[in-house]
């Protein structure tokens, strides 16, 4: 038995699993650090953490190709890290410093990266849905076979403009994947109190848009669903809906004590369904990596996070002249 312990798998599957683990852990640790910095007063305003939902963006980014676009709401830190944006630039934006992605003028909710095709970061619930269809409109106009991942929550799914967009996206066969991150709470209102039908993925049916529900705590399931949806869009068949059932461990924003649900509910989810622990267990039990290698990843992530926190604290304040720049192109 002892001999099998050193027989480590080294396959594409191992590579994928370790990348999932690493990318999800980066988001988790980043968000924990952001929470700390918020507590220290270094981050202000609204700050919405992604802890618990990491498998959604990491799984879907694995389905994305070069040139694909992504857009989301104000709970956007995870999306930015998953698409390869620099943690230093994201954290420095959270602290409102000159090294931030938006030079400190956007903040947690409004960040963008043209280079990484990340189109925000939008603070108005649901507004990113037509915008995302518009990105897909541009791709179809240019006939470039790219797709746009348009993320929104179960709360935003009740906004009228979502259905205006479903109609036009289906009518014009836009290559857009509508990703509904259903974390079961629209701010502080549980889904059963805000949503007449719990199966949000069926809401495209009236427009002829296919949809499916996906286990959002299982990164492999998310990736598989993402591949299928992206293939569908790239084939010119129009939009696709993925309702990804997930869970946020923290409150809606930093100022939310989350009294609308029990501590036990959260604890149960963390203990039984944590997406990062699930991958770690899989990696170790199937011997895709050794404990040592996992620890090396953990250490590397910790260093990245500490470095980005230092960067965000040390980055100079924004110069007063920046108040008057970037208003007009």
């Amino acid at each position, binding site marked *: 038995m002892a001999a099998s312990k050193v027989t480590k798998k080294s396959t594409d599957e191992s590579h994928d699993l370790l990348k999932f683990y690493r990318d999800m852990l980066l988001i988790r640790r980043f968000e924990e650090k952001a929470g700390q910095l918020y507590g220290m007063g270094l981050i202000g305003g609204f700050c919405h953490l992604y802890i618990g939902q990491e498998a959604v963006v990491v799984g879907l980014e694995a389905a994305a190709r070069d040139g694909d676009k992504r857009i989301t709401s104000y709970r956007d830190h995870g999306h930015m890290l998953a698409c390869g944006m620099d943690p230093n630039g994201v954290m420095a934006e959270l602290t409102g410093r000159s090294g931030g992605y938006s030079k400190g003028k956007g903040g947690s909710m409004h960040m963008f990266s*043209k280079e990484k095709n990340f189109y925000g970061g939008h603070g108005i619930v649901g507004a990113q849905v037509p915008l995302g269809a518009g990105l897909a409109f541009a791709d179809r106009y240019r006939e470039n076979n790219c797709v746009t991942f348009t993320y929104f929550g179960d709360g935003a799914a009740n906004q009228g403009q979502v259905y*205006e967009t479903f109609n036009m996206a289906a009518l014009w066969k836009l290559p857009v994947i509508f990703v509904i991150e259903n974390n079961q709470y629209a701010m502080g209102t549980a889904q059963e109190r805000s949503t007449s039908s719990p199966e949000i993925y069926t809401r495209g049916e009236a427009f002829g848009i296919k949809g499916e529900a996906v286990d959002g705590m299982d990164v492999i399931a998310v990736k598989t669903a993402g591949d299928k949806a992206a293939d569908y869009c790239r084939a010119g068949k129009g939009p696709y809906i993925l309702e990804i059932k997930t869970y946020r461990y923290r409150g809606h924003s930093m100022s939310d004590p989350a009294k609308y649900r029990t501590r036990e509910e959260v604890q149960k989810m963390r203990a039984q369904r944590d997406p990062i622990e699930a991958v770690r267990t899989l990696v170790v039990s199937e011997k895709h990596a050794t404990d040592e290698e996992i620890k090396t990843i953990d250490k590397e992530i910790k260093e990245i996070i500490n470095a980005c926190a230092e960067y965000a604290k040390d980055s100079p304040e924004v110069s007063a002249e920046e108040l008057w720049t970037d208003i007009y192109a």
Partner: protein
Amino acid sequence: MTTEILMPALSPTMEEGKLAKWLVKEGDKVSAGDIIAEIETDKATMEFEAVDEGILAKIIVAEGTEGVLVNSPIATMANEATESTVDVQPIEKNVQTDAPLTRTEFKSQETPLSGMKAEWGTDIQTKTQTVREAIRDAMAEEMRRDETVYLMGEEVAEYQGAYKVSQGLLDEFGSKRVIDTPITEHGFTGIAVGSAFAGLRPIVEFMTFNFSMQAIDQIINSAAKTLYMSGGQMGAPMVFRGPNGAAARVGAQHSQDYAAWYAHIPGLKVVQPYSASDAKGLMKTAIRDDNPVIFLENEILYGKSFEVPLLEDYTVPFGKARVWCEGTDVTIVSFGIGMQYALEASNQLEAEGVSVEVIDLRSLRPIDYETIINSIEKTNRCVTVEEGFPIGSIGNHLSAVIMERAFDYLDAPVINCTGKDVPMPYAANLEKLALTTTAEVISAVKKVIYE
């Protein structure tokens, strides 16, 4: 007995039309509901139905006649039941004889009023064109120049534009670039803004700017603010255009002037042309601009004709006012449809010996303060004219700037002529009272010159 058939008003702003075709001839028996003629308005060709039965006795206006005034007799009908004791209603009883009343004062000014100073050299040839045609030509020229420019909106393609502004564009550019949308302003505006983030240059037509309120979150929160929020990485190079302000008799929900609303927002540029040449030149500039531009048109002005220079590429810069006529006694500052009142007032005042300088702002963000201040340093008096609501108006803003920058030059308080502080009423007489008038502008001028 015979009754007259009168030229009908087939749209809220119609004052005259072309009698395109008679579908009946003299001596024909006509029943209620029969289509008796085709009438061409500035927007569409409409079928004209008989509302009563009888014999078409005489055709007064031959088919093909243009410029037939609303309510003028076009034919006579003989009623067979001459013995009938029932009162015979005029056959065109659905004609709203008072419909165009609010605009009759504009009737005589098909061409620009006196004092127009051309902005191009005297050696440049011009052609007479309506504002509608000028806007269409500007869009077509820019679409030929740049493949990323497309037009989107309700009825812009197959219907050729609700106000015929996009006439012919579908034929030339195809359905990929001239796109009919469903009636969902919030949604299609968001889609257009998203496509602009990705580098396309959409022109979004609102059937009227009243409907832009459905989409105002996308215009302001998404289009206007993203360049700033992204630290300059991406913005929305696009144009929002359509008729703005009151048309005629369309009531409170279709008559608002949004000039002051949009001019309030950093990140937007806002223009409101009066003449056809400015409409063309500003539209071309708007499409080329890398920022979101609000382009405010006016239904009443669509059909007005002006001289447009025959230049291959005529553009008008933003932030530059146009002095329509020079004067020394008072400065009138206006824009868009307000220029009608300003120029009419100026004409009448000139006849009374008052020397009036009329400035057309054209561009409301940025505003050409220099031209206004320079003029006031000369005239020492100022009246502003617009159709929008009075509180927080463009005139209010200009008054504050003039006070700050030219206080010592003022010999009288600045007066703002605006629309009244009421929702637009439907009744013809009340609508006229709700808008600003030439008489009010003249009265304001007399007040500031203490006459």
